[in-house]
């Protein structure tokens, strides 16, 4: 099963390379040639690629199409946003794990009978944290360059 999945991945990778070769962006390598000779799946893919090209050539398409730079830049922006979102999601999961561990440790501490200490700490923090506000705002102003 695992081997099959790995093989499928390999075929995908090779087929992507074939597309590049078909459009002249890459050269044939010996390894690829050998693979194409022996692999039925990739052979069928190569033939389909040719058939598709033949079919498309029947249409009267302009040889050089104008490319809208705004479209490309918007596509790049979208891709960047997607990457950023994915990275943020991964980090959020990591944070969630860390937070669960920390709160789990706190819960364990409470379970061991130290709940009073935690509660006192919470009350103390509720009272003391607002005193840190001027300091935090000062830091903020410094960060903003005032």
């Amino acid at each position: 099963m695992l081997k099959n999945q790995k093989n499928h991945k390999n075929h995908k990778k090779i087929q992507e390379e074939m597309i590049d070769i078909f459009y002249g962006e890459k050269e044939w390598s010996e390894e690829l040639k050998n693979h194409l000779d022996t692999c039925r799946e990739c052979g069928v893919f190569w033939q389909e690629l040719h058939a598709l090209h033949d079919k498309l050539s029947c249409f009267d398409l302009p040889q050089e199409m104008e490319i809208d730079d705004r479209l490309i830049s918007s596509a790049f922006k979208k891709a960047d946003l997607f990457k950023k979102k994915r990275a943020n999601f991964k980090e959020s999961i990591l944070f969630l794990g860390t937070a669960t561990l920390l709160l789990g440790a706190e819960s364990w501490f409470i379970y061991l009978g130290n709940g009073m200490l935690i509660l006192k700490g919470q009350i103390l923090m509720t009272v003391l944290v607002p005193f840190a506000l001027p300091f935090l705002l000062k830091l903020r102003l410094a960060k903003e360059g005032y």
Partner: protein
Amino acid sequence: MHELSEVPVYLWFILVPILLIQGLWIFQDAAKRGEHKWLWGIFGLLNVPSNLLIYLIVTRVILKPNPCQYCGKNIRGNYTYCPHCGEKVGEA
């Protein structure tokens, strides 16, 4: 004052998820705003609701007027994009 062992366990089961949700929300919001997300996120795990209020005040209150050159609404001095109109207002 009663010992905490007498406090119903369900209260802790309520408090812990609230802290978790608060911390996660602060973490994600800080990430969006380009703040120190880990620092603020862990800060959000410590206490409810005072730490959330402190976070909201520090990250949202604008102390010095700095109008956006496109829409005129006040924004922070270190913003790269205006959160109201989306125009670029500073260097990244």
